[in-house]
C-alpha cells in the first residue's frame, strides 16, 4: 500500500513539474450572468508545445481579481465550479474562413504555377476535406466562407459536413477586381454567420497575406463597403460582441498581416504558421483540440468598484494568464474620502421643494381688463403699440376698431377710430360692462351686436382672441 502511495505521489509530483512548463491562456471570459448571480466563467486553455495539457484539476488553478494591473492588488477569489473538456457536450461552432485572393493561386513558395494541385488554394481545400472527416463530435457545426475583395458565404455553421465539402468545389478563382485581401472587413462579416448560434464559437481564418484595401489602392468605392476602410479593432469588437475566438493560420511564404495575431490574441484565440500541407492539416486539428480541451472555471466576482476588472488565472502557482471584463456601474466610481457636508445639498433640495410647495399660482387681485391671447397681429392702443393685457376703467369707453387689419383700441375720446367698431363701456344701471358693436361680432363663438359681458367671455375680433375679465377682488 505504501509503495502504491509513493508511486502515486511521485507520479503527481512529476506531473506537476511537467505542468510548470505549460502555457496558460484565457480563451474567453463570460460575464453575462454577473448581474444575475455574481458569477464569471473563464474558458482556459493550457498547452505545452502547442498541444493541449490534459488531466488538470481544480487544485491546479487559482483565480484572482483586481481593479488595477498591479500584481499586489490581485485578490484570490473562490472557484465555484470546474469543468474539463467543456464544449464536448454542447459542441463547438466553427467557421472556416479561407483566403481566396489572387496570391492563393501561387504555390507555397509564392510562384504562380500551372499545376493546380500545387496551388495554395488547392492545398487548403484538400486539408479542409480531411479536417471535415476528422470531426467526430456530431454536435460540432462547421461553416464555410471565403474572402478576397469581397466576402462570400457558402454555409453558416451546420452539422451537414457533406454540404461543406460540396461548397469547397464552388470556390472559383477571383478576377482582377477580386484580387484584394479584405481581412478585417471579412471578419466583421463572418460574425453575422453566428448571430443565431449559442455556445462556443470560433473562426479559423486561413490567409497567405496582409490586409489589402480595395478602395484605398484602386481609389474608387468598394461595391459593398463603399469608402469605408475597416480597422482591425472593428474585427475585434465584432468578435467580442458575439463571444467568438479567432484562430489565425498564416499560410505559405511571404509577408503576413501584422494585426491578425493581435485579433487572435484579443479574442482568446492564437496564431499558427503553416508552410506545408502536412503542417496545415496539423494546425486545423490542433485548433479543434485546443478548444475541446479548454477548462471552464466559474468563480464568484468581487464587488470592488472598477470600470474594468482584471482576471488572473494562475496554474500551479507559477504560470499566469490575464484578461479583463467590463464591470462599471451606472453611477461610476466612488471618490476618495467622504465628507458629512454632503448632507447640505440634500437639505437644500428639501428646502427648495418646501418653498415651491408654498407658492400659490392663484392670483389674489386684479381689475377689469381685456386679455389678448394670440401673439399674432398688432394691437394699437391709443396710437401706441399695446401689450397683452389692457386694463378697463369704469369711466372711459373702450372702442375697438373692426375691419382695419390691425386691432385698433382707443379709450381716448380725442382719438377717433374710423369705420365699424365695438364699444365696451361700464353700465352703472346694470353694474356690468356692455358690448355694443356697429356690426355683429363673435362672442363665445356666437354672433352678437350687443351683450352684457360676463367675466371670461371670449371676443373674436380681426382674428384676435380677446378675453374680457371682470377681475378679482382682494381677499
Amino acid at each position, binding site marked *: 500500500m505504501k509503495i502504491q502511495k509513493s508511486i502515486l505521489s511521485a507520479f503527481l509530483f512529476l506531473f506537476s513539474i511537467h505542468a510548470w512548463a505549460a502555457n496558460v491562456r484565457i480563451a474567453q471570459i463570460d460575464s453575462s450572468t454577473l448581474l444575475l448571480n455574481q458569477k464569471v466563467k473563464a474558458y482556459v486553455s493550457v498547452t505545452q508545445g502547442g498541444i493541449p495539457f490534459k488531466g488538470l484539476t481544480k487544485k491546479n488553478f487559482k483565480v484572482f481579481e483586481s481593479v488595477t494591473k498591479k500584481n499586489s492588488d490581485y485578490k484570490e477569489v473562490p472557484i465555484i465550479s470546474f469543468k474539463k473538456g467543456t464544449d464536448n457536450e454542447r459542441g463547438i461552432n466553427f467557421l472556416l474562413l479561407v483566403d481566396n485572393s489572387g496570391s492563393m493561386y501561387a504555390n507555397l513558395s509564392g510562384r504562380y504555377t500551372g499545376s493546380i494541385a500545387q496551388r495554395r488554394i488547392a492545398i487548403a481545400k484538400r486539408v479542409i476535406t480531411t479536417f471535415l472527416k476528422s470531426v467526430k463530435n456530431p454536435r460540432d457545426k462547421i461553416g464555410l466562407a471565403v474572402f478576397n475583395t469581397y466576402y462570400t458565404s457558402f454555409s453558416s455553421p451546420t452539422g451537414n459536413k457533406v454540404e461543406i465539402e460540396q461548397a469547397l468545389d464552388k470556390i472559383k478563382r477571383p478576377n482582377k477586381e477580386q484580387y484584394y485581401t479584405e481581412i478585417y472587413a471579412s471578419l466583421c462579416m463572418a460574425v453575422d454567420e453566428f448571430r443565431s448560434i449559442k455556445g462556443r464559437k470560433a473562426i479559423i481564418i486561413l490567409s497567405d497575406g496582409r490586409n489589402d484595401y480595395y478602395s484605398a489602392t484602386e481609389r474608387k468605392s468598394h461595391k459593398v463597403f463603399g469608402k469605408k476602410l475597416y480597422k482591425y479593432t472593428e474585427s475585434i469588437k465584432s468578435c467580442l460582441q458575439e463571444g467568438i475566438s479567432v484562430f489565425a493560420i498564416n499560410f505559405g511564404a511571404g509577408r503576413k498581416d501584422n494585426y491578425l495575431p493581435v485579433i487572435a490574441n484579443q479574442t482568446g484565440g492564437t496564431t499558427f504558421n503553416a508552410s506545408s500541407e502536412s503542417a496545415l492539416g496539423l494546425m486545423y486539428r490542433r485548433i479543434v483540440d485546443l478548444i475541446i480541451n479548454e477548462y471552464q472555471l466559474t468563480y464568484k466576482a468581487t464587488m470592488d468598484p472598477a470600470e474594468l476588472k482584471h482576471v488572473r488565472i494562475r496554474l500551479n502557482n507559477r504560470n499566469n494568464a490575464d484578461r479583463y471584463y467590463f464591470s462599471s456601474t451606472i453611477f461610476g466610481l*466612488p471618490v476618495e474620502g*467622504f465628507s458629512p457636508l454632503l448632507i447640505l445639498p440634500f437639505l437644500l433640495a428639501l428646502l427648495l421643494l418646501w418653498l415651491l410647495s408654498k407658492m400659490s*399660482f*392663484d392670483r389674489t387681485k386684479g381689475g377689469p381688463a381685456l386679455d389678448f391671447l394670440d401673439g399674432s397681429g398688432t394691437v394699437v392702443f391709443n396710437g401706441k403699440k399695446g401689450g397683452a393685457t389692457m386694463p378697463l376703467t369704469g369711466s372711459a369707453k373702450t372702442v375697438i376698431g373692426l375691419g382695419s387689419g390691425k386691432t385698433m383700441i382707443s379709450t381716448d375720446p380725442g382719438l377717433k377710430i374710423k369705420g365699424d367698431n365695438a364699444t365696451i363701456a361700464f353700465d352703472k344701471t346694470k353694474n356690468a360692462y356692455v358690448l355694443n358693436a356697429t356690426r355683429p361680432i363673435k362672442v363665445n363663438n356666437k354672433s352678437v351686436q350687443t351683450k352684457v359681458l360676463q367675466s371670461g367671455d371670449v371676443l373674436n375680433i380681426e382674428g384676435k382672441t380677446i378675453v374680457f375679465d371682470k377681475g378679482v377682488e382682494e381677499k
Partner: protein
Amino acid sequence: MSLAMRRMFLCLIGLIAGLAVWPIAETAIKFQANFNSYLFFSIFLGLVFGLFMGGFFGTSEGITLSIKRRILTGIVTGAIIGILGGIVGFLIGQAALFLLGEIFVSSSTFKTIGFPVARSIGWAFLGIFIGMVEGIRAKSRIKIKTGILGGFLGGLVGGLALEYMRLLIDDIMIARMVGLLIFGLFIGLFYSIVESKLSAGVFRVLNGRSKGKEFILNQRRVKIGKSAKNDIVINAYSNVLDEHAMLIIKEHKNDKEVSIKSLNATFPVIVNDVKKDNHTLTINDVVQIGTAKFLYRFI
C-alpha cells in the same frame, strides 16, 4: 400656471430632484464593496434613486394645482412607484451597461464614445421608469406613454451630458453633481415637451383666481370640480359642484376627440353660452362651469 411656466416648473423640479439624489448616490457608491452582489447593489441604488426622483416628481401635480393634500399623496405614490421603477430601471440599465460595455470595451474610442454611449443607454432605461411614475399614479395610458418617451429622451440626453461632464470636469464628484442636475432637468424638459405633443389640447382658465392656468388634456378622463380629488380643481368659483363635469378623450387613428359631460343633470355645463349635458368640443369653444370659464385650444 401657463404651459411655459409648467415647463419651467418641471425642469426646476428635475433640477431639485437631481440635487437631492446626488449626495444619496455618492454615499451609496462609496459602500459598493460592502454589497454582496451587483444584483443587490443595483436594487439598492434603484430603490434610493427611485424613492427620491419619484417622490420629487410626484409633488409636481399638487404644487401646480396648489393642493397641499395632493402634494403629500403625490410624494407617497411617487416614491412607491419610483422605488419600483427605480429598481426595474436600474436593473435594466445596469444589464444594458454590462452588455454594451463588453461590446465597446475593445474599441479605440471606448473612453470617449463607447463608454458614455453605453452608460447613457443605461440612464435612458432608468429615465423611462422615472418618467412613468405620474402616468402609473394617474392610471393613464397617455401619461405612461408620455413618461416612456419623455423619460427615455431625458435619460438619454441627460445621461450623455452626465457622462461627458466626467470628461470635461476633473473632479468626479462635481461632474456627477452637474450631470445629475442636467439629468433631472432633461427628464423634466422632455417630459413636458412630449406631454404637449401627445396631448389632446389644453383647457385654459379665462377668469377668476385661476385665470391663466392651463391644464393639459393628457389622460382619457379628466374630472373637473371643487373637490381636491379632481384632475382640474376649481375651488375659488361659485356654483361649482364637488364633481361637476368630465372631459372624455377618445383617440382615433390620427386624431383625438374631446367631449365634455355634465356629471349632474341639474347643473349642466355651458358651452358657447348654451346649456349642454354632453358636447363634443371644437377648437376655441368656451366652456362655463359654475362661474369659471375655460377656453379649449390646441397647444
